[in-house]
């Protein structure tokens, strides 16, 4: 095995420009422990809070031994529905699909296991923790409904965030009847939990009706809006600081109940309060990826061309709120078929409400669809890659729109060449390694939509050649601190070393949502626009000043580079920012910019990133132990701002795909609705030794339509394709098709 995959070796130059593989700008802070995460905030007079959570999944709390907790030395207060601060708004009121119902000690009801039912506030964490234990809740327990067979399925009004549950065209029954070969298979994916390494932490402090909250957030503006509504105070009274998120993956996209409880606790006691969720507290009130049961029916003609694709998803939301995993979305976009039906059905169960989790819908749907495509290829006697090429979608299947760009053929070709796919035997169980392990190769197609939200930014360029960009953007590890700096430095035409980036605070212009793989397009677009506004004003000054060598060039006739404005048609004529501003009697220029999706372009084009993932697995023929030994991904996602960080995003996504295929599974006791593995020892995620040699090929793709920067997202696509590729490789190694994920050795042997 090669020791490590080839990596980008260029050094961390300080010449800031889009496309350079710069190292992370905040890296020195993170490797020295000086990057302050929310839980590292230690204001004077800080109290510590601990959650008491429900040990039943449905019913009500009938008693809490508040006196015992209060007697414990160091305990300051016990917050229960009896004394919780009154809220201005019912936390169960919905004002949009992005508003999720929260459990904020408004009543005694229990709607899922691990729901917060009280908060103990104490001088020390130890006292708070013990106080929470001493509450010893008593319950009236109802039998919970758990699992996809809990009740009769219904058609949800919307899936994901307001998408239609049923879409398609043609007649799949007729298409299946006409097929020369057909398959029908049921795939099951389990509930999964985000498990960001940083638990949701909140340090809240009130000054009258002004709230300062240190908490990780993927969406500062929405979080401020939610808190303002709940506490009945103007948004301007709320300041949220979130400079670094210790991972998010969707779980910090909407503010969670425990984060609000920290604010309520601080209000109750009139002192700053820190509430850090314990790991087990995160299995319930912070969302999860819902389980799915996906039934796929495919038909193909004698040439292997699909005649029908029917993708039916059954999934579960909570008893009290809506988030239905949109698993069928991948079938809208990936393979050409004359007859397509994508349907979603739901049940309600007694768990916390599911939420978006890294590639929501695409991850679950891709795992099933890519397995089904493999099974269809096998039924046609075709190589699975050839089958995918035969069914290549030239236009988006669901809409008929052309793609704004789609370099998927290049992804297949470059990935296959690098992996050595041409040597793959068609039949399973043909390859063994030197140790006698079964070896199998599989492929999966990766896809993720190129989304865009709304953001604003402010930029400043000063006479000394330095610049600043300010945006309430959020870095959860994807690299916004660096990528946005690169975009801003290029936009302002200065060396990145001369640029200061301020971000991660709700007091800054809204950076939109760090989610949907859309943050670079959205926040980057706003930064780019703000920088353009600055340069436009500077150019206006210079080109209308007869003393300037740029006089008469016109705004569009100059470019900004290396701290100068340069005449586009004659680069010998240029002037420094300082010279231009000095004559104008200014010391700086400030500009603002906004970015949002272009509705006309979105109407005209389907916008998606694509990729191909190739997996090699080794399986012990006697024990069924599975190891992924090699992963090669080739991805096309428009313009690459920073190849080093993009590669890391792909690797991270591919590891999530591996985790999806082989590791992750939240287990509930169906009798009680309680978790069997709400901890990182028993809820398995890959460790270093579980991960294979990986390569990520950054396939060139120009996209003139997708957005001003030409970028698509890279944070989520790596999961898609990978889980299916691994499942297909396991079949190829063993001849056994496991349709219930994760593929564990008992399922392989069973």
């Amino acid at each position, binding site marked *: 095995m090669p020791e*490590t995959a080839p990596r980008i070796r260029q050094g961390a130059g300080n010449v800031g420009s889009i496309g350079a593989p710069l190292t992370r700008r905040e890296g020195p*802070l993170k490797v020295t422990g000086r990057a302050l*995460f929310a839980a590292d905030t*230690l204001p004077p007079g800080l109290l510590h809070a601990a959650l008491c959570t429900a040990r039943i999944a449905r019913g009500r709390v009938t008693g809490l031994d508040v006196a015992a907790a209060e007697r414990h030395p160091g305990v300051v207060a016990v917050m229960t529905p009896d004394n919780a601060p009154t809220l201005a708004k019912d936390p169960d009121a919905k004002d949009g699909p992005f508003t999720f119902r929260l459990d904020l000690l408004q009543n005694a009801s229990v709607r899922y296991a691990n729901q917060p039912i009280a908060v103990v506030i104490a001088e020390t964490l130890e006292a708070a923790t013990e106080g929470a234990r001493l509450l010893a809740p008593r319950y009236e327990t109802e039998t919970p409904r758990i699992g996809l067979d809990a009740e009769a399925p219904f058609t949800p009004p919307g899936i994901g965030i307001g998408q239609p549950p049923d879409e398609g065209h043609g007649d799949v029954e007729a298409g299946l009847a006409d097929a020369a070969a057909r398959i029908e298979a049921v795939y099951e994916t389990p509930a999964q939990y985000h498990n960001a390494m940083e638990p949701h932490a909140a340090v809240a402090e009130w000054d009258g009706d002004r709230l300062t909250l240190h908490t990780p957030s993927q969406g500062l503006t929405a979080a401020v809006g939610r808190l303002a509504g709940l506490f009945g105070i103007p948004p301007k009274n709320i300041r949220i600081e979130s400079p670094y998120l210790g991972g998010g993956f969707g779980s910090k996209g909407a503010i969670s109940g425990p984060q609000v409880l920290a604010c309520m606790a601080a209000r109750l006691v009139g002192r700053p309060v820190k509430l850090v969720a314990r*790991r087990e507290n995160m299995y319930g009130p912070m969302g999860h990826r819902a389980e799915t049961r996906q039934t796929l029916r495919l038909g193909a003609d004698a040439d292997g061309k699909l005649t029908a694709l029917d993708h039916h998803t059954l999934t579960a939301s909570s008893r009290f709120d809506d988030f239905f995993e949109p698993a069928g979305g991948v079938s809208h976009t990936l393979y050409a078929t004359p007859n397509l039906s994508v349907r979603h059905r739901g049940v309600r169960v007694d768990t916390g409400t599911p939420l978006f989790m890294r590639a929501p819908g695409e991850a679950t749907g891709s795992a099933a669809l890519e397995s089904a495509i493999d099974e269809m290829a096998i039924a046609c006697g075709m190589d699975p890659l050839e089958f995918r090429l035969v069914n290549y979608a030239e236009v988006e299947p669901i809409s008929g729109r052309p793609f704004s760009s789609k370099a998927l053929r290049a992804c297949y070709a470059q990935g296959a060449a690098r992996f050595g796919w041409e040597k793959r035997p068609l039949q399973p169980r043909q390859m063994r390694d030197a140790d006698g392990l079964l070896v199998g190769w599989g492929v999966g197609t990766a896809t993720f939509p190129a989304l865009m939200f709304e953001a604003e930014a402010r930029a400043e360029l000063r006479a000394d050649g330095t610049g600043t960009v300010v945006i309430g953007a959020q870095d959860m590890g994807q690299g916004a601190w660096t990528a946005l700096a690169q975009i801003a430095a290029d936009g302002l035409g200065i060396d990145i070393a001369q640029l200061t980036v301020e971000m991660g605070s709700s007091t800054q212009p809204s950076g939109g949502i760090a989610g949907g793989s859309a943050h670079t397009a959205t926040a980057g677009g706003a930064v780019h626009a703000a920088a353009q506004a600055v340069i436009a004003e500077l150019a206006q000054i210079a080109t209308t000043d007869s003393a300037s060598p740029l006089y008469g060039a016109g705004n569009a006739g100059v470019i900004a580079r290396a701290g100068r404005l340069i005449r586009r048609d004659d680069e010998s004529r240029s002037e420094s920012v300082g010279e231009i501003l000095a004559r104008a009697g200014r010391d700086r220029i400030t500009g603002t910019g906004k970015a949002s999706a272009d509705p006309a372009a979105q109407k005209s084009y389907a916008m998606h990133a694509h990729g191909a993932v190739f997996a090699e697995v080794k399986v012990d023929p006697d024990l069924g132990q599975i190891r992924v030994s090699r992963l090669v991904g080739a991805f096309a996602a428009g313009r690459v701002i920073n190849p080093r960080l993009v590669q*890391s995003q792909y690797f*991270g996504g591919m590891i999530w795909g591996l985790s999806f295929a082989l590791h992750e599974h939240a287990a509930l006791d169906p009798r009680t609705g309680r978790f069997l593995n709400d901890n990182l020892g028993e809820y398995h995620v890959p460790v270093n030794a579980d991960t294979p040699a990986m390569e990520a090929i950054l396939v060139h793709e120009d996209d003139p339509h997708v957005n001003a920067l030409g970028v698509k997202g890279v944070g989520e696509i790596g999961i898609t394709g990978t889980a299916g590729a691994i499942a297909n490789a396991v079949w190829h190694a063993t001849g056994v098709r496991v349709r219930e994920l994760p593929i564990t050795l008992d399922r392989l042997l069973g």
Partner: protein
Amino acid sequence: MSIPLRLTVNGERRDLVLEDPRVTLLDALRERLHLTGSKKGCDRGQCGACTVLVDGRRINACLALAVSLDGASVETVEGLANGDALHPVQAAFIAHDGFQCGFCTPGQIMSAVGLIREMREAGESVGDAADVERVREGMSGNLCRCGAYAGITEAVVAAARAEAQAGEKAA
């Protein structure tokens, strides 16, 4: 209850009086000494984000009661750099992109520093592919949910090899 505790933290004598015997080393570092570099990801020894060196060995600081470590020497991520000069392992983590969100990073880095010492003491080389597998195994007590393992492994191997080469030159 007040319990005196004498620690050497990053080479500096720190005398503490704990009011509570339940305080873990991690909470003593974070909440009492305000050394918040060491992180709490699980508080039960499953994630490794709190890894520090105690008397030179890697431990999960969340699993050690502070009172049990009277007289011990503790090394944390705050003590590695020499002013602005990063420790070679820290520099390697940046160069090889061995982190994304950075939350597990202090633990990963302390684990790497400890592992390199363990390998050196055991006379293990870091010269070939088998040793890379040793590094992967040796770093597997530290979870990274972002999935930065490729960069972490590269960083640890590079730092270990650089140290070995420097040692050979010195000899």
